[in-house]
């Protein structure tokens, strides 16, 4: 199986492909509208020297933009999720439930929380599909 360097464009492309190819996702996310940016805080000790900003966009079961961006673009998203590298790695490895991580303050989210709560199955599915991507993490590669 091909491995993808985590938090890179090629890794995002592989993740997008997984989402776009999931019939289950299409059904679960049929009501979802809008973008989510993900900020991975820098952690030089784990080979993440600079923050990584990712912009993802979803529309009624379809996946639209999915790219590495700058800080300004990340701020434009409907939902802005931020967290330390170690936390995102745990999420990507399915060692940490994203909703639990938010409740416990391990990740931060700016945006309409009621919308997230109503569509939590969509979030969980997107993360489930991420865990299917064979990832080479910066501190492991």
């Amino acid at each position: 199986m091909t491995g993808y360097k985590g938090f890179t464009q090629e890794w995002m492309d592989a993740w997008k492909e997984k989402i776009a190819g999931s019939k289950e996702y299409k059904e679960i996310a049929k009501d979802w509208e809008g973008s989510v940016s993900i900020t991975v805080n820098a952690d030089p000790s784990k080979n993440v020297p600079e923050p990584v900003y990712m912009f993802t966009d979803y529309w009624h079961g379809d996946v639209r933009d999915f790219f590495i961006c700058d800080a300004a673009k990340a701020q434009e998203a409907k939902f802005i999720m931020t967290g330390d590298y170690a936390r995102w790695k745990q999420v990507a490895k399915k060692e940490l439930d994203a909703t639990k991580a938010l409740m416990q303050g391990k990740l931060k989210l700016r945006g309409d929380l009621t919308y997230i709560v109503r569509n939590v199955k969509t979030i969980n599915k997107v993360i489930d599909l991420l865990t299917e991507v064979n990832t080479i993490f910066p501190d492991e590669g």
Partner: protein
Amino acid sequence: MGYDQDLSFVYFGPTKIIFGSGSSTSEVESEMSALKCSRAIVVTDQGIIKAGLLDKITKSLGEKCVGVFSDVPQDSGMDVVDRAAAFAKEKGADIVISIGGGSVIDTAKCMCILLTEGGSLADFEGIQLLTRPQTPHIVIPTTAGTGSEVTWAAVIYDKSKGQKILIVESYNAPRVAILDPTLTAKLPPLLTASTGMDAFCHAVEAISSMQREPIADALGMHAIRLLNKYLPQCVKNGSDLTARGQVQLAATMAGWSFGNAMIGIVHAMAHSIGAVAHVPHGIANGILLPHCMEFNLPDAANYYAEIAQAMGVCEKGSTTKQAAEAAVKGVFDLTKKIGHPQKLSEFGVTEENIIKAADMSMSDGSIVNNPRYVADSGEVLEIYKKAL
């Protein structure tokens, strides 16, 4: 209760509890001083003033009370928070003291953010965005059910969006909750019953939640013991301060329990039927709880069997399944005993309403923590039909 080796959780419950009849007047000033605060803004509503609950507390604060904001409506909004925070700033407040129910407490929680961070509440819509402790907040609840005195979430109406927004911040948990049973003594029987069932529901759903954990379980289980014993006494005799106090403590324990372990299908359905047909939250929970427990039985029997023991309805030698069924019957019996409404139709709910609410329930976040997987809205609709 059966936890596996993957058990991993964070329990958070930083609020100091002061309990006792008369504590709202005898302790508030010293608690304020212990927090090194000297200028309190009191937040309340007109109902509390009319009930005569405010004066004694503000008198006990003396000159340390620099102002009272009493314009908090039933479903408080961002505009109210903005006005209240501006008033508090103008008075130079360094602490917020809320006296009231959920709406007053949540308004005060949001004021604390604006007093510390400035700006507009809209800037803080989200979860865990804060990075430092907020303006201290002492809560003096006048109802027993929501558990808001120990949770770190606030629900506020956003007029511009026409919906309620949720602000979840562990840095904004109240510092102190003063539970004074005398303040709940005048609650009428129906409100006592429905707020009590709200607390009961918090405990049952937390204990059987997908995110259940031992500390939340212990708190939820004792809340059930206390509510089962003392809620009927409160309804029968509102001035029984022993019973009132135990119900207040139970509501607080249930607040910690669900604040950490989350809730399930009952709340998803109660939120939805509340939105569709305006059934009061506590009443919807009380009506729906035993029906949802019946639905959950195949996957929650272990937890419900423990609940049966806590309620004292588990017969010796019962199997787990029999004990779990006894818990469901026990909850039905409890609601009847306290004169709690039994059917949603008593509140004008129609067939059309429950179809819409069933669909809405599927997208409510609470449903994901339910012990039994809910496959589609048809399953939810069947529960609503039984409760209609």
